[in-house]
């Protein structure tokens, strides 16, 4: 049961997350409109990049971070069954995130920092944009510390007992974030801010990209964490099944901790400042993250099958029909898996050194991450909110039909958005461009696909509005006496876990060690090489 103090805290996180999400979504749809043949050339492309910066920063940093934090606090109290330690610190951390978001978004909306969420050095925007992001990150580190503190306090009081799986996974995600955000933080503190504040006029863009890649891949796994946690600890319970294996779940999460970090240079395959051998190392470990991914897919499918059989499903496929398809959680996990499947197939192409040449920096890439992130991951954020909402508001969440409609709309909308988006990428349409001349014979065939994507975006906006509506109605419904919140139970009760799977020291050591192996030399070399800096380019050009 959540205490009143924690409820307010978690609701604040979720509402801010969803507000940022809705605003950013509308911006995204506006961008698609501007890029589509439905709109003429916008005479000032800077407006487009302003919007993309706001959309990207809100969607990639603010929204998932707040969802992970809010969900993390909920897990800490619900899974450990102890009051949240450090409630004030949690509010302070929330305050920093709010302050940072406002500080960052003010210069963006004024057009002073249209540098995109990946910063794009040597472009340099207004210093407050970066300071804001640092504040957000520092705020999130407080959350990381609180997660660790709550876990350790529990461990002291329950010596020898296995840490509940939800908390184990949650803390793995928190530690992953702590280490992965160091890359971007170093880039901002040591490279970008000195220039943005006017102390320096040149910047080593190649090194900056290496630092950013440190953050860029693992941040994807951080976005994924709430989704994967929900797969393991909410889905089986919500659909009336059992978690197939508790140990498998723990192994997956520690493998994510180890492998999702030292692979970021797969975003730099076409960058000349990194040697091909280093790129190869990163490619190999990139392939390794497929291990926990496949483990997860296997475990979740098995858990869902258990649910189908418990509900009387028979035969090789009969259990599928027996699943509770009217249950929003069931729909969400199914849609998420379908989108993950398509997205994963696309990811194989990105992963290949050669094939990547064809789609590098094209709209394929944007199509790909919208499908995985906006589709497979975010649809589970919705499901998490639906699942937790009664426990946050103390009121019933009854609009089940609306929820189903919302999830269906999101799923269909996302496919309509991303399939043509991938396709124009193959045709060579570059990403991050504000205008395309569709009257040109070479571009004319792409016009229809971009229009279709825009229409799909309308479905997504409608779905997001429904989502907000469901949650608001949840606040207005009748008070109920809540049943105790339960996470999934494994098929075999977890009575004993090897210490290695009950603690993080080993995995953190491996994570840091691999980072040193895979990043140490390129960073040291680029720092030592003279004459690798270029003049910074202020992002404001009139």
């Amino acid at each position, binding site marked *: 049961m959540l205490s009143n103090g924690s409820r307010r805290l978690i609701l604040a996180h979720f509402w801010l997350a969803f507000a940022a999400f809705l605003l950013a979504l509308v911006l995204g749809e506006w961008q698609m409109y501007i890029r589509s043949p439905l709109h003429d050339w916008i005479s000032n492309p800077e407006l487009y990049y302003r919007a993309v910066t706001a959309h990207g920063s809100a969607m990639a940093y603010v929204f998932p971070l707040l969802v992970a934090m809010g969900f993390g606090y909920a897990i800490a109290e619900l899974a450990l069954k102890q009051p949240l330690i450090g409630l004030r610190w949690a509010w302070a951390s929330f305050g920093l995130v709010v302050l940072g978001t406002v500080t960052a978004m003010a210069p963006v909306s004024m057009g002073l920092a249209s540098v995109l969420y990946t910063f794009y050095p040597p472009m340099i925007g207004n210093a407050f944009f970066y300071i804001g992001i640092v504040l957000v990150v520092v705020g999130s580190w407080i959350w990381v510390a609180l997660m660790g503190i709550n876990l350790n306090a529990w461990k002291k009081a329950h010596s*020898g007992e296995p840490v509940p799986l939800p908390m184990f996974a949650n803390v793995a995600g928190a530690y992953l974030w702590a280490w992965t955000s160091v890359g971007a933080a170093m880039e901002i503190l040591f490279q970008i801010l000195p220039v943005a504040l006017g102390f320096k006029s040149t910047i080593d863009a190649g090194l900056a990209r290496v630092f950013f890649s440190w953050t860029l891949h693992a941040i994807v796994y951080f976005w994924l964490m709430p989704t994967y946690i929900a797969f393991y600890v909410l889905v089986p319970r919500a659909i009336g099944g059992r978690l197939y294996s508790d140990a498998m779940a723990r192994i997956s999460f520690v493998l994510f901790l180890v492998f999702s970090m030292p692979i970021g240079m797969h975003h730099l395959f076409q960058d000349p400042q990194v*040697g*091909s*051998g*280093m790129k190869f190392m990163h490619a190999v470990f990139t392939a390794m993250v497929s291990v926990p991914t496949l483990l997860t897919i296997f475990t979740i499918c098995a858990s869902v099958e258990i649910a189908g059989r418990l509900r009387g499903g028979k035969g090789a496929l009969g259990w599928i029909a027996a699943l509770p398809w009217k249950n929003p959680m069931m729909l969400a996990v199914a849609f998420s898996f379908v989108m993950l499947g398509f997205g994963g197939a696309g990811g194989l192409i990105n992963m290949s050194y050669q094939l990547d040449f064809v789609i590098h920096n094209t709209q394929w890439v944007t199509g790909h991450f919208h499908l995985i992130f906006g589709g497979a991951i975010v649809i589970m954020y919705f499901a998490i909110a639906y699942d937790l909402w009664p426990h946050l508001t103390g009121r019933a969440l009854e609009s089940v039909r609306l929820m189903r409609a919302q999830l269906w709309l999101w799923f269909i909308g996302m496919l309509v958005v991303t399939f043509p988006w991938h396709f124009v990428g193959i045709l060579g349409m570059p990403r991050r461009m504000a205008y395309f001349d569709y009257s040109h014979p070479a571009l004319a065939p792409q016009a229809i696909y971009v229009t279709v994507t825009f229409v799909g975006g309308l479905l997504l906006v409608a779905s997001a509005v429904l989502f907000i509506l469901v949650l608001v109605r949840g606040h207005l419904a009748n008070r109920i006496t809540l049943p105790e919140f339960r996470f999934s139970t494994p098929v075999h009760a977890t009575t004993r876990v090897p210490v290695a799977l009950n*603690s993080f020291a080993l995995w953190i050591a*491996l994570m840091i*060690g691999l980072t040193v192996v895979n990043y140490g030399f390129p960073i040291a070399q680029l720092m030592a090489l003279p004459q690798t800096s270029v003049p910074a380019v202020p992002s404001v050009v009139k």
Partner: protein
Amino acid sequence: MMETERVFSLRNVWFTASVGAVIGIAAVAALIGFIWIPLEQSNKTVAGLWDAICTAAGVPESFRQVQQSAAPIAGPSNVIVSAQMMKPADGLSIGRGAALAPQCTMCHGVRGMSHADAPNLAGQHDAAIYKQLRDFKSGHRTSAIMGALVAGLGDQDMRDLAAYFAGLPRGPEATAADARHEAPVIVRNGSPMRNIAGCTSCHGGIDIKTGSPRLDGESESYLRAQLLAFATGARHNDIYGQMRNVARQMTPEEIDTTARFFAGR
């Protein structure tokens, strides 16, 4: 008992297995990525094991002697165009070039200014002349006349000829101020909607990109012929298709006006 079990101990299989597996994967990946692949790759000129490792780690190559090989390979050109590709002209090189030049003057003019329809070489950038000669020789740019003529020239001969012709007078170099006035829009500003940068941003006026020939004072028919050849792909020795992408997008009228414009300067 769980709490007495130590994680960082060789007796803990979780420790030995996970650390062993990670080190094993990293070691195999490093062997393949730093030794096997660089040694196997035929187009890399690695001198040995240490060299292979350095190349794969991304140590810059500038200190090593990069041989500009003349063997024909696929692609637009096998000349490596870089700011350092030409040494500063010295008297000796220019003198040797002057001695070789009589083979060329009957077509390209006594002082590099042609009265036939051959392109003017006087005042042409040395890198541009050298690159074209190399491409004629390797067959990346085809010309029945020039192909036969360069067959006997060595690398140093081509450098000497480039140094000699580059030093001959053609007329004043275009300035940015000229570029801003009188020139057609496509020359000054290009056409961003068609992915064309202004000609002046590569060919002089705004910027001279290494390897881009000087166009002003060139004969109109030669310029038109080259633009048409790029547009059809008949000429395809421009690296990354820089000129083919431009010319393909130009209308016939634009080709005419630009050819006339540059010829008239």
